[in-house]
């Protein structure tokens, strides 16, 4: 394996490791469930994608072919991670998990628990912001 491959694989691996670590740190440190849901579902997906890319290049550099397994894992992960995050958010709303006080649009949770659409608004709130 020549140096170019080695440098690319190492950089991708370290980027992936750091992203996964940041995701897990967010899972351990953030304040309530809804903010904790953000950290692993985004950061860990990017990190694992980077590690998978590194292992694909590694297989190409050592064996001389590109494995389909790794591509399959990437595809599967990119499809399934948002699905799991969505279902977990629904579970948390169903069980009325506590939110931090700064959460915006808290009144919409009641409608979302009943699986109704949000009520119609005029488009702009009183202080000029978009709803």
């Amino acid at each position, binding site marked *: *394996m020549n140096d170019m491959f080695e440098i690319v694989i190492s950089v991708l691996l370290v980027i992936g490791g750091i992203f996964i670590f940041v995701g897990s740190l967010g*899972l351990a440190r953030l304040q309530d469930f809804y903010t904790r849901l953000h950290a692993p579902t985004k950061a860990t997906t990017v990190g694992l994608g980077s590690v998978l890319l590194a292992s694909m290049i590694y297989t190409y550099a050592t064996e001389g072919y590109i494995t389909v397994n790794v591509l399959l894992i990437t595809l599967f992960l990119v499809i399934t991670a948002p699905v*799991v995050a969505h279902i977990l958010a629904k579970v948390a709303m169903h069980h009325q998990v506590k939110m931090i006080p700064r959460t915006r649009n808290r009144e919409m949770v009641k409608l979302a628990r009943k699986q109704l659409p949000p009520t119609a608004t005029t488009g702009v709130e009183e202080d000029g912001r978009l709803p």
Partner: protein
Amino acid sequence: MLDFAVIFVGIVLAISLLLNVYRLFLGPNASDRLLALDTMYINSIALILVYGMHSSTTLYFEAALLIAMLGFVSSVAFAKYLLRGDIIE
């Protein structure tokens, strides 16, 4: 250089798994624990891939694929149980 990177990433992933275990034990309610489990299987896929690079074999990729599929199915089944009280209605 590659050996050093592989070992560094292995250590980082192990620390991440420990952080997930911390949340798994401490999590105030079931959805936190479920999120911690979901993150743990993603991290273990990465750890298996890094170990495969360390021992220079492609044999572990199938195991990673299996963990990816079964982890998703188990997460969704458990979330469905928490949401509806039943898995298949």
